């Protein structure tokens, strides 16, 4: 089953990127995708317990999360914009390093939490070691908001299967 998943994951981008639907190009795509799927399926799908429905539900939740994240990115930009253009910039800024322990367990969810922290207002991830996050915050209020609602959202999407 994992071979089929890998094949689909590889073949759809092939079709989109090549943009040609004659037998030569599609045939090459099928050949390459099946070879790579045969060799590398173990890398892409390590979670053997998940069912197809579970994977699709996870994907749907992830798309919803992306929507929420996009809103946060816009807020983050307005925040940087406001601080950068303020004539009293030095009063608004109070940069600081914050350390906290995350409860997330999977590597993927930690990676997504780190990237989400970077994209949300006033915080950038500096380092992740084990479950210890080192985060640089631009202002006091941003530092107080860590890790906040984001960690719970990510835990809801990626830590449970099914």
């Amino acid at each position, binding site marked *: 089953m994992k071979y089929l998943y890998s094949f689909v994951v590889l073949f759809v*981008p092939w079709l*989109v*990127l090549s*943009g040609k639907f004659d037998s030569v190009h599609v045939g090459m795509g099928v050949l390459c995708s099946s070879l790579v799927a045969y060799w590398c399926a173990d890398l892409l799908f390590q979670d053997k317990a998940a069912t197809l429905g579970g994977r699709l539900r996870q994907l749907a939740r992830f798309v919803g999360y*992306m929507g929420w994240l996009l809103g946060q*990115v*816009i807020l*983050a*930009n307005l925040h*940087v*914009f406001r*601080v*950068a*253009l303020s004539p009293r*910039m*030095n009063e608004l*800024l*109070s*940069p*600081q*390093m914050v350390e906290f322990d995350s409860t997330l367990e999977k590597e993927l969810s930690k990676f997504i939490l*780190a*990237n989400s922290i*970077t*994209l949300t207002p*006033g915080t*950038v*991830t*500096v*380092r992740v070691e084990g479950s210890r996050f*080192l985060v*640089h915050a*631009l202002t006091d209020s941003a530092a107080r908001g860590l890790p906040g609602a984001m960690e719970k959202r990510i835990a809801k999407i990626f830590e449970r299967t099914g």
Partner: protein
Amino acid sequence: MGYLGYILISTGLVFFLGTTIGLLRFPDFYTRMHAAGKGDTLSTVMILIGCICLVPMDLLLALKILLIIHFIFIGSPTATHAMMDAGHKAGAAPWRKDSK
């Protein structure tokens, strides 16, 4: 649809301007990375979505641009994170309010 494209591209450029001003005005390496890491992502995405709106009938092109947006969304925070970590490892001291 065309006008929406122009509006999105202009907004993206305004955000780029804010990013650049932040990059120039912020006091140290870390705060500058805040401006660069966040501003780049949103303004690039806005300009690319604007490009989709300008050529509305080409589904394949839209899908390709969406793929680019997807990779920018993954790549840009990761690159910011790598540079922040490199600066931290090299011992760049964070700017503090009382340091000057």
